[in-house]
């Protein structure tokens, strides 16, 4: 079969049309791409391991922030997208995941982490590649000049602030003789330091600072000594499971009879897992508790969004940080009218916000979010429902002076 050669005119026309289309197409394509190109936020958190419950709450709340942003028009029509990765609570894995997010997925920003060690390793990778990182878990080290960079932001509380707030509440109330049972790692030491600094001003006396190995299962070896010291206050400077364990065993050894037990951080999820008996009578600090909604309208608004999206359940403290961490970054994108990390960082530095618990802003020298600290006490009776686990005792207002000074952290300039 032979093809009839096209007539010259029609072939010329099709050539012209084809050529025109080919010329315009890339431009159209680029336009389409530019309009559609999502703003990618990498979200490395420990989905497996000891803190997976908290991490999953972080993801849930962060998704709300992304959805809000997209539904209110995004940025120049561009939508945001959360790329969640499991860092297994392991700094080496966190570094690898962050490299993957930056190099392969080409994320614009990174928000995440749920431990001091992982956030520092994520930060190391991000700052070398000039990608903005907003950390949503506790660390003192990340404020220090050594780890800091223009791209490093810290949405969460730090041990110094949390411990200080709890000390300022508890020491005047319960007594001056204090014993610390401290997890022997950086976080534990930072908590003790925070307590002691605040305590100094209040005349508190450290009877002993007993260090236990991180992740110790059995605290019975330390409790007889604590018993014999007869302190007014026993501070359990540890976290998560360590806290549950040590609280339980302290109760077993009858310490609650004469001593008030306090913890720097009382997590909503840890309390749910540990149960009412272990935590009976224990008070501590936290960044957020849903029960604040009676007094704080922003909390109610945030809680309702979460309830609506997740069938009535309430957000935890870490969940709220996930929400705020992402929302701040996206707001800064709009303020800076750009997705370049440098410009967004500058916008973030100017940001004043109230996403869920009150006024907050990032301090200039170390990008630490200046915020309130909530003091809660665990409930074991009169609980209205399964969510009602804490009484809010006090809220220490946001105050820059409660943080360590810029000089102390090694920052040369506080621009």
């Amino acid at each position: 079969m032979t093809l009839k050669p096209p007539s010259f005119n029609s072939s010329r026309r099709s050539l012209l049309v084809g050529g025109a289309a080919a010329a315009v197409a890339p431009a159209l394509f680029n336009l389409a791409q530019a309009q559609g190109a999502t703003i990618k936020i990498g979200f490395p958190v420990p989905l497996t391991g000891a803190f997976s419950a908290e991490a999953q709450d972080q993801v849930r709340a962060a998704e709300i922030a992304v959805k809000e942003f997209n539904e209110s028009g995004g940025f120049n029509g561009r939508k945001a997208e959360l790329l969640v990765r499991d860092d297994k609570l392991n700094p080496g894995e966190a570094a690898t995941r962050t490299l993957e997010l930056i190099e392969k997925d080409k994320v614009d920003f990174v928000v995440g982490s749920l431990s001091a060690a992982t956030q520092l390793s994520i930060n190391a990778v991000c700052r070398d590649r000039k990608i903005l990182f907003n950390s949503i878990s506790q660390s003192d080290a990340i404020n220090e000049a050594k780890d800091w960079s223009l791209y490093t932001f810290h949405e969460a509380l730090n041990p110094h602030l949390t411990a200080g707030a709890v000390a300022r509440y508890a020491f005047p109330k319960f007594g001056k003789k204090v014993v610390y049972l401290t997890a022997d790692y950086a976080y534990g030491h930072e908590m003790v330091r925070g307590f002691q600094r605040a305590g100094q001003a209040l005349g508190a006396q450290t009877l002993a600072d007993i260090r236990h190995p991180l992740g110790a299962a059995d605290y019975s070896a330390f409790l007889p000594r604590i018993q014999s010291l007869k302190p007014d206050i026993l501070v359990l400077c540890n976290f998560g499971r360590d806290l549950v364990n040590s609280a339980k065993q302290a109760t077993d050894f009858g310490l609650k009879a004469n001593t008030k037990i306090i913890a720097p951080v009382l997590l909503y999820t840890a309390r749910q897992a540990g149960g009412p008996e272990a935590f009976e009578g224990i008070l501590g600090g936290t960044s957020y508790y849903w029960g604040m909604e009676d007094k704080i309208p922003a909390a109610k608004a945030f809680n309702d969004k979460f309830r609506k999206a997740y069938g009535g359940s309430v957000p935890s403290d870490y969940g709220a940080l996930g929400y705020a961490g992402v929302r701040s970054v996206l707001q800064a994108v709009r303020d800076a009218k750009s997705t370049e990390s440098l410009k967004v960082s500058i916008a973030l530095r100017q940001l004043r916000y109230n996403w869920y618990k009150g006024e907050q802003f990032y301090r200039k020298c170390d990008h630490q979010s200046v915020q309130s600290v909530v003091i809660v006490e665990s409930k074991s009776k009169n609980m209205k429902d399964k969510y009602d686990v804490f009484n809010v005792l006090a809220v220490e207002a946001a105050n820059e002076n409660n943080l360590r000074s810029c000089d102390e952290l090694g920052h040369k300039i506080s621009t």
Partner: protein
Amino acid sequence: MKNSIIALLLLARRQRVATVLLFLLVFPLLMPYDALSVNILIFGLYAVGFNLLFGYTGMLSFGHAAFLGVGGYLAGIAVVHGGWPWWAAIVSGVVASCLAGVVIGYLAIRTRGIYFSMVTLALAQIVYYAFYKADSWTGGENGLRGVRVERIELPGISIDFLNPLHKYYVIFAFVALALWVVSRILNSPFGAVIEAIRENEKRAVACGYDVARAKLLVFVLSAAICGLAGALRALHLSIVPIDSLHYLQSGQAVMMCLLGGMGTFFGPFVGAVVLLYLEDVVTNLTRYWMGTVGLVFMVFVLFFPKGIWGTLADRIERWLGRQGRSA
């Protein structure tokens, strides 16, 4: 056609270093992202070092993470606290892990069999605690941060180390060197001695070989290679995490060697590819990656004790034999 395949296989077998290197050269094209390829390269090297001791000499150490960690930390400390250039950092890492190998090896060699495994575990734990406590040098629980190498300056060229593919090839250069060294060792009379020790230690003694010295030497060589892997890892991740020294990391080396094939040259790399890729893929599919990896591992122990590469190499050998072309 068949003859050319046979010729190729024979050539590959004779030039095993070159074959492995060729594979590793194109490896990044097969992996979803470059950071994973680099991890596999590094852990492959770690497994090669471990394999020298376990696969070829028959000594099951459960404390090899100590050398990965020491290499990493000393390289990191050189950069962070000393401000030394990248090549000095790598040398420090290797030298330090050699020294650690001498000390731990000297103590451990005095025991045999299961006690050897237990002693290496205990000594490695002590190293772990020592580095954990020395937090002004090592960062303790938070790990050592700030191992920043942005450019590799060589006479004539300046390489952007932050570029993942460039980073891969720089690290590849070191791995190639190490593999060449291992191959030379295995092909030497010394290589024959250590395999003799694996097969029957008493007979090796009876033949007049200084078995204790040979064991110590291979232990130190193994430590040096694992130390190099650790040093490279520090440069790759810009951090040295404390669990580089944990016994679960030692367990990883064992797993990689078994999955890949102990006592084979290429086996450890195959094991590293399988384990790391599997973990990466499975992590994205299910949260039960630990159980899945454990299951796969058990299947291998039961049905493919020679590992993937070991079994494959075996089959190839037998096929070649049938073609009348063995040895």
